[in-house]
């Protein structure tokens, strides 16, 4: 029977010889398993005299402890080496990527449209909508453009073949939504109506037969022209930022009176003509079933497309409609 000390030496030799965790596992079985010399020696202890048995038992226990420590230490070494090898083998060059998945981009018109909606929602407005193919009545009649009124010529209207000739058209502005809202909602009314509009126009850098506008309408008990000017100013600050101011200049629209153009002054002092506005004309209120002696209101409207051009530094309106991904992907 081997001496315990020899067993420890042998274990040390075999553990050092093991080069993998699996090999070490075999060594552990051989050295401490059921059929190991250590276990056999322990079984043989019963044959000894009590005194000798005690001494030999202590020696065996010490050897067992020593062997376990040797094996654990070696196992730690081997696992660390294995892990290091695996990690080394898994090394990646993180710039080895073949394809960048495309980003999706919202169209610049949508981005501008949503920003405008957000500004007005923040000011307490709701967002209204209306049809793009509109009746002559809502586009003109309800808005105080009597039939044959020369002001109708200011709008190069596109008509469609539907119903009686001249009764159905592609809306030339978002203002018909004003009339539709007033017909369907009791005041007070605070709405904006962004939408697509159409004109008989030849496409060039600054004109398109299709464009987008946003309309605002407020109807309340004592809404004033001062409220209109203040609202335009508040919008200007909210949308364009600090340092931008606005002014109103008298103008003419059949559906508002007094009417005005509104301009935005940039921090560098230059002006941008933005849109039209005014106090809702009493004839419009009456056409929509609202008593102009009880309610007052204002409306304003301006183009979304041109704002998008300015905001993104685009110099040709036609670019908005090409759908070239090299354009779409920039915004």
């Amino acid at each position, binding site marked *: 029977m081997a001496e315990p000390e020899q067993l420890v030496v042998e274990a040390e030799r075999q553990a050092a010889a093991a080069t993998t965790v699996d090999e070490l596992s075999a060594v552990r079985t051989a050295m401490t398993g059921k059929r190991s010399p250590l276990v056999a020696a322990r079984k043989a202890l019963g044959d000894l005299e009590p005194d000798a048995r005690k001494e030999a038992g202590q020696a065996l226990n010490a050897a067992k402890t020593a062997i376990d420590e040797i094996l654990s230490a070696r196992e730690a070494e081997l696992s660390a080496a294995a892990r290091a090898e695996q990690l080394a083998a898994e090394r990646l060059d993180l710039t080895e990527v073949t394809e960048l998945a495309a980003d999706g981009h919202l169209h610049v018109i949508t981005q501008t449209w949503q920003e405008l909606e957000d500004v007005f929602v923040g000011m307490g407005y709701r967002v209204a909508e209306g049809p*793009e193919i509109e009746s002559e009545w809502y586009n003109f009649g309800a808005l105080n453009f009597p039939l044959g009124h020369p002001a109708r010529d200011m709008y190069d209207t596109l008509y469609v073949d539907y119903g009686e000739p001249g009764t159905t058209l592609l809306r030339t502005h978002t203002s018909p939504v004003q009339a539709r809202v007033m017909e369907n909602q009791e005041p007070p009314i605070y709405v904006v109506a962004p939408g697509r509009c159409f004109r008989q126009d030849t496409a060039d850098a600054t004109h398109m*037969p299709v464009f987008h506008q946003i309309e605002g309408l407020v109807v309340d008990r004592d809404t004033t022209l001062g409220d209109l000017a203040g609202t335009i100013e508040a919008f200007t600050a909210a949308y364009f930022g600090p340092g931008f101011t606005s002014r109103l200049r008298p*103008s003419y629209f059949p559906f508002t009176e007094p009417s005005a153009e509104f301009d935005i002054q940039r921090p560098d002092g230059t002006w941008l003509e933005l849109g039209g506005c005014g106090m809702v004309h009493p004839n419009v209120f009456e056409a929509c079933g609202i008593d102009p002696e009880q309610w007052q209101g204002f409306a304003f409207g301006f183009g979304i497309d041109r704002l998008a051009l300015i905001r993104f530094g685009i110099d040709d309106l036609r670019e908005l409609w090409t759908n070239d991904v090299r354009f779409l992907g920039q915004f």
Partner: protein
Amino acid sequence: MKVLLSWLREFAPDIEGEPEHLAEVLSDLGLAVEELSHVGQGLDGIVVAEVLATRPHPDADRIHLVDVDAGDGEALQVCCGAFNMAVGDLVPLATLGTTMPNGMEIARRKMRGEWSNGMLCSGAEIGMGDDHEGILILDQGLSLGAPLTEALGIHPDVLFDLEVNPNRPDAMSVMGVARDLAARLGVPFAVTAPQVVEVGQPAAERAAVSIAAPDFCQRFGIRVLDNVPSGPSPRWMANRLLAVGQRPINAVVDLSNYVMFELGQPNHTYDLDLVPGGELGVRMAHRGEQLITLDGVERTLTIYDGVIVNRDDEAIGLAGVMGGASTEISADTHSVLLEAAWWDPMTIARTARRLGLRSEASARFERGADSEIIPMALDRFAELAAALGGTTSPDMVDAIGNRPEPITVRVRSQRVNSILGTELSTDEMTDLLEPIGFACESSGDSQEFEVSIPSWRLDSATEIDVIEEVGRLHGYSKITRTVPVTEQAGALTPQQQDRRRIRALLTGMGISEAMPLPFLAPGDLARAGLGDDGITVTNPLVAEESIMRTSLRPGLLKAVAYNAARRTTGVSLFEIGRINPGGGGDLPDEHEHLAVILAGEEATAATTLWRRLARHMAVTQPGVANGPVDGLHPGRSGQVLADGQPVGALGEIDPQVLDAYEIDERVAWLEVDLGALLGADRGLAPYRAPSRYPSSDIDLAFTVPDEVSADEVAATIAQAGGDLLDSVSLFDVFRSEQLGEGCRSLAYTLRFEAADRTLNDAEVAQARQSCIDAVTTAHNATLRG
């Protein structure tokens, strides 16, 4: 509308201030100044010179040499690129050292070896008209060497180019602009009555007017003039006309234009000898009536056009739009009938538009001229003509049609302040109104007053019109700005929020938003394999914009083709837009659609997309029903279902359509009617806590005939699996020779789970068997392996 500051000052001499300030004031009055320019300035150094000789340049074809005498009797050689002068002509010479209005400095220099000692000027170069081509030939009789400004009576002046709104007929005249400006500046405004010396036979004995269309013609005034000058108009008048953009023609035409610009009243002259008996009439034209207008064009008239007729009822003029050729003034004209009339704005607008004859005159009549100004306009013409030797018969012929009563408006001061947001007193309001001719009378009540609308403001008739005038004259910029407060919380509707959710989902999936034009050309729908053309546009400018779309497909196909032609394939785009599928009530039906086009993808990519969209939008029972769809690959297309109802189509674009668009890759397609998706009731499904007990997965593979869709099999499994089945998902599909033609293997993972316990093997086995039995029975399928 262009106005000169000097001309404005003839009505309001005290108008003072920097031109830039005056421009701001005009804009603030609603007369937007589009351009402010200084005229008659920067002409120092330009003198009158006489052409002594011209000869070719020895070394150049495009310029020649001109010898001029600039007053010192010496011949001065100048190189010149214009050839329109003759020996003896007087021309403007920019002498050496002159700085031209455009900043160019004139120095002695050699041009192709010949010295040029100055420059001969065109009208455009010195701010006199638009002619860039030729050298300005000056009137004879000017002294050589005299500064041009002195010789021509040119004074430094300021020109305002105003944008006049359709509701401001009064501002279409120098007088009207001066009235507004003087009122705002608080300086006096006055109109001096023209002085007419009358001689000879009274007008009434030489001319007559009968009005047979009294609504169309409210007033028709005539003066008869003799000895009308045939030469050019005086220089000062020509200078003014040039400055406001009107080319001088001859004295009679220039006088007519001058009076129109000054007072806003268009007028017309007839050669009296060509008007039998001097008798004129006004009536509406007969249908098909012919008239040769001044421009020599034969016009065919309608009953909506007004005409001037002679004694024989023959049309000799298109009222308010253009005179007739038969009575035109010529060099031989001795006596003229001068007409100043008021015409119905709508009639003039219609005629001018129909015949494409818009003019300075029709522009004024369309807005509504001032019938009260007619006598003064006639007198002003006579006064100016007298300075040129013309004489005027006593009196005017003044024919009157149906004239409306003058309008008075009751104005409530409180209402004015309530609309404007001001706190003006009644006196302050009337002080603003009186200077622009809105006469105000106290009504006894200090809170109200009566306003008489002046004849030159046909746009004004109601209280709100007067309120606008108060606001305008007070100044919009002086009104205190306030922001109205609403109790309403601003918000997007659920539909509008959903649109944003969809856009966010799609862009998050790498799909960009496109914006194709909503118009189509004839044949575009057929090219995309779609049905009949949609609603047509009645008056498109180009055929490409003549049809409203019935589908978003042609636009997105065009976008993919556009990018493919620029070597970008695999493009993924979506659009949210309106279509008009046909049908409708008062208005055509209008649907909002979402379409997604995935170039380089197969049909199932569209299914995956629809599933994700449906899940994201909580669509109830989303599905796909295989089957042919117009314009899509017949074996790779189907209907999109929501709640069992068709709401769109998906699949792959028909290869034939792709050929037509020259697209070389497969293209997956999804189009959904958003009406079915937006604003759906979401979040109502009761919350279900995740089970605390382990779930069990089993895989089942079936051989299934091709006619049965994978969805149908999954639905059968889902039903058979009962409450214990947590999910079923397809994970593998394959076809092989062993399986045979007409069928394929579909493999699903089934996950079983209970909320209150761990399932035992027997329970799972039983559920598994139920699923197998259901599928094999329902779909003629067999379990594999």
